[in-house]
């Protein structure tokens, strides 16, 4: 698998992402500086977490205008695979690659804790190593993860099966109590209509090593590595 990790000033989870991708695929991802525009040869573009441009305007809004994002849009338009995590998800929504927006958490506080995610479909390159309906644990760490979109968009996402993960209890119940940041319909991650772009708020890349408390996040990267190993 040839993955590229896009770096904006203020991105800070690129190392975590590189560790997870390398662990799963055996090959180190390429770091792509925000001024670069050549993404050729990549199977997967990852926009990692952090505070691009300090999140001083609106989370992801500045990064969405960077030169590399034009290349990411072209890459996606050509059917390329894109993963955006946390600030990366925010950037993808700001760039118009995914619908909706991420608002301040409902409790108005930064939340750093484990959450549980229910897998809504497993027939994608991202979720192929999970089972549909499976619940996995993942760290999350964000102040603005409260997913929102207009009701028509939410209905469309659900109707077209584009909800990737929902916040759930460890038993898999999609409830208000499990919805830590107040996201609409407990949505933690969504796909593009062609299922090749995934944006999600939690950090599965931080739970890929038993020493760090578990490997619940690893199947996501194993699935990607397997999909692109076959493709190669």
């Amino acid at each position, binding site marked *: 698998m040839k993955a590229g990790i896009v770096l904006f000033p203020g991105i800070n989870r690129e190392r975590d992402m590189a560790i*997870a991708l390398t662990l799963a695929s055996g090959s180190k991802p390429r770091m792509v500086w925000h001024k670069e525009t050549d993404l050729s040869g990549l199977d997967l573009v990852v926009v990692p977490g952090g*505070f691009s441009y300090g*999140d001083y305007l609106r989370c992801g809004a500045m990064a969405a205008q960077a030169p590399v994002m034009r290349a990411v849009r072209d890459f996606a338009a050509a059917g390329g695979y894109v993963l955006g995590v946390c600030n990366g998800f925010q950037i993808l929504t700001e760039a118009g690659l995914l619908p909706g927006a991420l608002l301040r958490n409902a409790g108005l506080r*930064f939340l750093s804790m484990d959450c549980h995610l229910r897998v809504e479909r497993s027939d994608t390159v991202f979720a192929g190593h999970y089972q549909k309906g499976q619940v996995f644990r993942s760290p999350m760490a964000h102040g603005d993860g409260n997913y929102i979109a207009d009701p028509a968009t939410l209905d469309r996402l659900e109707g077209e099966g584009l909800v990737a993960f929902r916040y759930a209890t460890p038993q898999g119940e999609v409830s208000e109590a499990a919805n830590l940041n107040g996201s609409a319909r407990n949505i933690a991650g969504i796909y593009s209509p062609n299922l090749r772009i995934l944006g999600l708020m939690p950090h599965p890349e931080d739970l890929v090593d038993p020493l760090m408390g578990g490997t619940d996040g690893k199947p996501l990267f194993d699935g990607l590595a397997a999909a692109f190993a076959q493709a190669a």
Partner: protein
Amino acid sequence: MQRQVDQSLAAEFGLSAEEYANVLEIMGRTPTLTELGIFSVMWSEHCSYKSSRVWLKQLPTKAPWVIHGPGENAGVVAIGDGLAAVFKMESHNHPSFIEPYQGAATGVGGILRDVFTMGARPIANLNALRFGNPSAPGTRRIVDGVVRGIGGYGNCVGVPTVGGEINFHPAYDGNPLVNAMTVGIARADRIFLSAAAGVGNPVVYVGSKTGRDGIHGATMASAEFGADAEEKRPTVQVGDPFTEKLLIEACLELMETDAIVAIQDMGAAGLTSSSVEMAGKGGVGIDLDLDAVPQRETGMTAYEMMLSESQERMLMVLRPDRQELARSIFEKWELDFAVIGHLTDTGRIVVRHQGAVEADIELAPLADKAPLYHRPTAETPKQPALAAARIEDRVGLGRALETLIACPDLCSRAWVWNQYDSTIGGQTVKRPGAADAAVVRIEGHARALALTTDCTPRYCAADPEMGGMQAVAEAWRNITAVGARPLAVTDNMNFGNPERPEIMGQFAAAIRGMAAACEALDFPVVSGNVSLYNETRAPNGEARAILPTPAIGGLGVLDDAAKAVGMALSPWLDLVVVGATRGWLGQSLWLREIAGREDGAPPPVDLAAEKSVGDFVRAQIQAGAVRACHDVSDGGLLVAVAEMAMAGRVGARVPAGPRDIPSHAFWFGEDQGRYVLAVPDAAAFLRVAEAAGVPAMKIGTSGGQDLTLPDGGTISVASLCAAHEGVLPALMERAG
């Protein structure tokens, strides 16, 4: 318009009449405003340690693994694999009272710079916090702001906040303590220092632009608070963690080259202290041209630029032939880069601005003739040891336990930790609350660091010497409890007004106790910070000091991160207490929270026993014989067992203790040097302990959903957790 420089202006700047007379003697003339500013900040308590230096010298600072002790930006110890840990703790108490969010945020930013300026990538933050009475009106605002500030800065720069501690006591009502600690990792042979060298070498300013924020912050931090605290708000700096993140990456990238001769962050007293200290340490002179300083505001004077404490700035001396390489790296990271001067052979600091010489001071006397005070000390009166048998238990074990685990000093801190990113970096082996020390693996290595901060201020108030000793011992114990080898500490000495003999007496005694413990435990002090004048003057003129709080930041190493143990119980194990239990109730939380008394001598620390018990526990963990371990500290034995049960969401059965100690004293006494271990087979374990000459006894077994108490009562772990975890959210999130 500039004020005339005279003794009254010097007094406003915090210089005493005697100190100002010294300035006149050194200068041989009336100093300029800028010169007076430079003297006043360099000779402030904050920068000169004038009241504390004589005592700090007593602390042991050496060990074979110490690479750099006190005197550099941070302490450096070798941890194996050719790596070094770089760490320090520093206070931001005064700013955090005036403006909690920015005060705490810039505290985190400042300590991060102290660490990466030495060439280390920061891998962990911790913070030791003390707040006032939790139900007092101002406390909630301060807690909220400080926690948001620490999170806001640390989360954005992308360094995990993995540990720390919080106490509440009315003595901190007008004077919260915010002590921030950063730990970084560097190659042991690539440590960057601050001593300037090479006459003619360029002096380079990088980072944020200079503004008028924080002028005279160091002087503010060297005075007590009166009713005008609110008016001091402009002396608090504003943090920009985004720029700090860029500065970290740019500096570390430049440090991969051979461009840097010397580097120091611009912390307290900004450009003044960085330039004076770098040139002073290197025995060279320095010429600064302030016209070249990147400025955020127009019309700034030399005085303002020299004293500004604008954040996220560094000063470097570069090899001239690497200047353009360095410039290109900082331009890539979109940070200011300006050559603002050069080194000279004059031994003087010369500051030019708009064609005029605004300051010209000989550096040697600025350092050598800095004030040094042997302030009078008064010993804290000793309190009698309390006889446990004479203190009646009117409550019983179950109710006392429920009260204790929900009291402000023992209730769950999850509400705070959950606002700090503790997993970023992907190396956090033991997150906050999972173990006695945070455990962070070093990326690409099996090795991990064990990190903790500790101090028990109520012990320090009752007996500062024993309290100082206990703070060091507890840090050593917490590192031991995860199976790590303790290496060194950083200290953050928070005290009241040193001009009062009883306060200076507390300071001196605490240092004595710390020195004894550091010596006995082979646990030297490699860096530190002193914060004095933590007092608030009440409207009636009475000075109210904080409890003496010598906060200790401890660092240890695990050669194999996989051997770390946490405190969470799992079912069907035996519980063993290692270390002697005598039932010491003086200064215990049981005494305060249940009996309503805050008296008696604190529990004594037996340093020889501490060492032998700790070495035994560590060896057992390393041998794989221990499934969970938790030191016995605040609240005593039963609280320790309950904390292990809550962490694992597993019950335990603890039968009656020995008959010769009253039950409440056995279960809630705070005898030092003890650990509760969960082991597969107590009988076998006790034989090993006996052979090692270490006191140990079985106190129970784990399993089920309930905690079954020695008196036969039961409490469900779920209800304990609910009580334990509900306190801070209820205090902090209540409406109105």
